[in-house]
């Protein structure tokens, strides 16, 4: 009845038994095409869960090598992977988890030159980048191509997550119009990050992707969820399309 093999039916039995997912939902996962940008702190849990869930085709773009300071939170990579390209190390771990998933590996940095051809190959994008210029590039391109994207960010003991239906729901620039001025917002390297916070936020991103693919529940559109590990609390902020947004507003200046 469903286009799933006997092995797939067994492997994904705990999904299939969920009435909201079922065989039909698992088949959607098998057909899904998801691009994950970055195989670091956020990309690790995202890639682990998407792979385990049987998310059909997964694209992974990363241009860094595994450094010893990564291992405290980037759980895709192991101590023997030190010095290896993160894309290779990630692919190896993913194949061990689930050899049924198709993995496209791009050992490069996301730029304005490669982003559009790359986006054409995928339906959903996950942001696991570690710097603001790439984050804004990804936001703008996904809005222009009307891609659905799950945005995530972490710093110290805090995280944020927001799901964006490019061109329909509030985008990252609707909330944060311009990147912060250089020197004002530190990186995780400068300010630190509690490792498990990356796990919380990345796992929420993976949950959103699985929901988007299967159509289960209500995506985090027009809402930004802030996580505070010190208080162990979540604060939801309503976000609206900003008519003055430079990319999705009435008179976009970024085109």
């Amino acid at each position, binding site marked *: 009845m469903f286009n799933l093999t006997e092995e797939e039916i067994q492997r994904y039995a705990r999904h299939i038994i969920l009435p909201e997912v079922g065989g039909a939902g698992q088949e959607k996962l098998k057909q899904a095409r998801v691009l994950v940008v970055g195989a670091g702190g956020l990309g690790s849990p995202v890639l682990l869960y998407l792979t385990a869930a049987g998310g059909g085709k997964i694209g992974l773009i990363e241009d860094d090598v595994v450094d010893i300071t990564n291992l405290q939170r980037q759980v895709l990579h192991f101590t023997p992977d030190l010095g290896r390209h993160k894309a290779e190390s990630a692919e190896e771990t993913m194949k061990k988890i689930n050899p049924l998933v198709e993995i496209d590996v791009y050992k490069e940095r996301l730029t304005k030159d490669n982003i559009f051809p790359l986006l054409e190959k995928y339906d959903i994008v996950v942001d696991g980048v570690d*710097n603001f*210029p790439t984050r804004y590039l990804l936001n703008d391109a996904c809005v222009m191509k009307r891609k659905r994207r799950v945005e995530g960010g972490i710093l110290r003991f805090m995280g944020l997550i927001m799901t964006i239906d490019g061109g329909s729901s509030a985008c990252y620039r609707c909330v944060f119009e311009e990147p912060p001025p250089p020197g004002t917002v530190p990186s995780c*390297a400068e300010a630190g990050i509690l490792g498990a916070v990356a796990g919380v936020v990345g796992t929420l991103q993976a949950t959103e992707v699985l929901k988007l693919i299967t159509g289960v529940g209500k995506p985090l559109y027009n809402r930004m969820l802030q996580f505070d590990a010190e208080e162990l609390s979540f604060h939801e902020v309503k976000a609206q399309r900003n008519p003055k947004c430079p990319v999705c507003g009435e008179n976009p200046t970024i085109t």
Partner: protein
Amino acid sequence: MAGIGLDAEKDSKVLSFETKCREGEAQTLSLVVQGKKVTYRGPADMRSLLESRGENTLYANVRINGEVLNRRDFENIPIAEGDEIDILYFMGGGIVQPD
């Protein structure tokens, strides 16, 4: 932090920081900050409110009564009785420029 006193009441906090406030400048305002009702005592500008909470204003963007203010000159943003204020944090890496 010197000069910042926290008196927890039931659901509200009284935030005062006398060292910053000259006599006459301070106001007492009922606000909703991050979804929680608070009573704030101090100058009626956003920077003073953020500083009274120990927030790092460098990281933050703010939303007042549903409108996101994409500006960082918090000292020039007035706050008023009843305002609902969300503090939005920039998170997501640093300032490292791609090559």
